[in-house]
């Protein structure tokens, strides 16, 4: 199958079935979807529709039962654990709903840590971390520990960390679920700005209609299938 280099992510007929005892749960039931470079896409759908499952598969945290996933022109399906780890480190930025940052590290160190794993030299790490933290609106908070940051600020650190490694795509699973709506919208505004300014490709899942407003494309899932795909 041909794929144009413009597709950042291609999901081709992907299924994911969980077996719980004798029960089979079809979290994804043969889904196909392509995301372009620079997209800012929301993943919507009721609880249990497969949003998290899909994001985990794209991010190589789990592998599909069948189907293929191509990321930035490279086949992801069937990679070894170690290759998947490399892929996550260099190609994927993650923002989770909660427990995103490492408690013993300051905001700056959290951002630096991924670059440390990537082997970026110390000086460059610090410079890049400082710049990105300023950009996400955390100037003056570089040296705060997570315990000294609000939930919204912690999520901003997570976004900064996801972006700083220069990934192909940032996957955010309900990044605003633990925030009040004003803070959530602030976070989304910031993410949208990063998408525009830096051209980072984002895909995030959400239940929040206000948050969906920021997306240029909304993909709705239902029972493990795409039920609606709207681009504004």
């Amino acid at each position, binding site marked *: 199958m041909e794929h144009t280099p413009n597709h950042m992510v291609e999901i081709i007929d992907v299924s994911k079935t969980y077996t719980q005892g004798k029960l089979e749960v079809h979290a994804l039931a043969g889904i196909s979807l392509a995301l372009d470079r620079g997209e800012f896409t929301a993943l919507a759908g009721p609880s249990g529709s497969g949003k998290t499952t899909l994001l985990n598969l794209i991010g190589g*945290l789990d592998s599909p039962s069948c189907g293929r996933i191509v990321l930035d022109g490279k086949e992801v399906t069937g990679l070894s654990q170690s290759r998947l780890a490399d892929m996550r*480190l260099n190609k994927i930025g*993650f923002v989770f709903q909660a427990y995103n940052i490492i408690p*013993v590290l300051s905001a700056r160190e959290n951002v630096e840590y991924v670059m*440390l*794993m990537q082997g970026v030299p110390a000086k460059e790490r610090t410079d890049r971390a400082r710049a990105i933290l300023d950009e996400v609106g955390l100037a003056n908070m570089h040296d705060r520990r997570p315990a000294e940051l609000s939930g919204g600020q912690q999520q901003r650190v997570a976004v900064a960390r996801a972006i700083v490694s220069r990934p192909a795509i940032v996957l955010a699973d309900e990044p605003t679920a633990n925030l009040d709506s004003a803070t959530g919208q602030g976070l989304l505004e910031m993410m949208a700005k990063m998408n525009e300014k830096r051209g980072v490709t984002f895909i995030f899942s959400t239940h929040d209609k206000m948050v969906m407003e920021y997306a240029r494309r909304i993909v709705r899932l239902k029972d493990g299938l795409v039920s609606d795909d709207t681009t504004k």
Partner: protein
Amino acid sequence: MHLQVSWRNVWRNPKRTGIILTAIIIGAWTMLAFGALSRGMMTSTLSNALNTLTGHIQIQHPAFRDDPVIDNRLTAPARVADVLEQHLPGNAAFAFRIQVNGVASNARNSESITIVGIDPAKEAGLSFYGDNTAQGKLLAPGDYRGIVVGQALLDSFETKIGRKLVLMTRDATLETASKAFKIRGTFRAEMEATEKQFVFITLDAAQSFLKAGTGVTSACIKLPEETTMDLEALAKTAKALARELPEGTAVLTWVDLLPLLKGYLSMFDSFMLLWYLVVFVAMAFGLTNTMLMAVLERTREFGLLKALGMKPSWIIRNVLLECLILLAIGLAAGNILGFATVQALSGGIDMSFMAEGSEFFGIGHLVIPYITLKDLLSVNAVIMGLGVLVCLYPAVKAGRITPVEAMSHT
């Protein structure tokens, strides 16, 4: 940065870290302190034994060891003396003796004893003779009639200084010889048995009493104290002497002379190793358990790190680094405590409160604990090496946590 991160992780839960550290510190401390005490007891036992007329090396007639009678004597001690004077290290000392079994008797009592003929000028400092005079005085050179006995023997014979004691033994002509000696003084020894066993007369008196001419039964050599435990050097010195000495002499080290003691000392070594293991096993349980708890508590964090692209080997390394930090701190503190304890006891521990018990094992009254480099290294190596090994389990466990299961972990 790794070290910094691990360092912070170590202090994340100060209470738990405190518990682990306490375990390591107590482990290292007791290992060192008990090790030092054991060494002290071994040394005390050994020096006691060597002081009781064994010395480090003895030169004897080859048959004397199996049949310690005056027949089996060195007939030309002058040649032996020449060799010893030339080939012994400067800080070593030696003296000739005649040492045979006999019977001492007076009107009240009669006991089998060991008659020791000594050179009064040279014997002091070589053995316990002259260390601790209880009553009267020591033998003067050329004293043909005097005898020095143990205080306990004096008491059991119900006699006193100035009275006579008859010695009886077999002389060089295979006749029974007996002679009355005048008690000049009494000595005290670490052990009562020693006081009752040995009676001292001058070498000259012994030679004439036993009709041995200028013969002696042994030359006793004492090497510098600090080389006592250095068995290799001892064997080397003995070998060198054997090469130089004339035919018809046997060179015996204390290891040859006291094989039982040697065995007992090696047993001590094994006991110590066993003790290390017992302490370590107790410590290891605490260490693994607490580390495992610490790791499981951080399941979400390890899941996150894995999601971010950290490889299992990296996670294992980080957890091991944390263990290493804990072990290093614990060992440092344990070593300091151990040395401080030994320093505090450097005046020696008076064992006389258990005199009966310790005498049975031949331990002296004063035990000075000390730490040898070998013990220090083995304690630290055991704790460090096995400690890291034991941490491998929680570390691998942390490395196996997957992001997906971590996320469902609350």
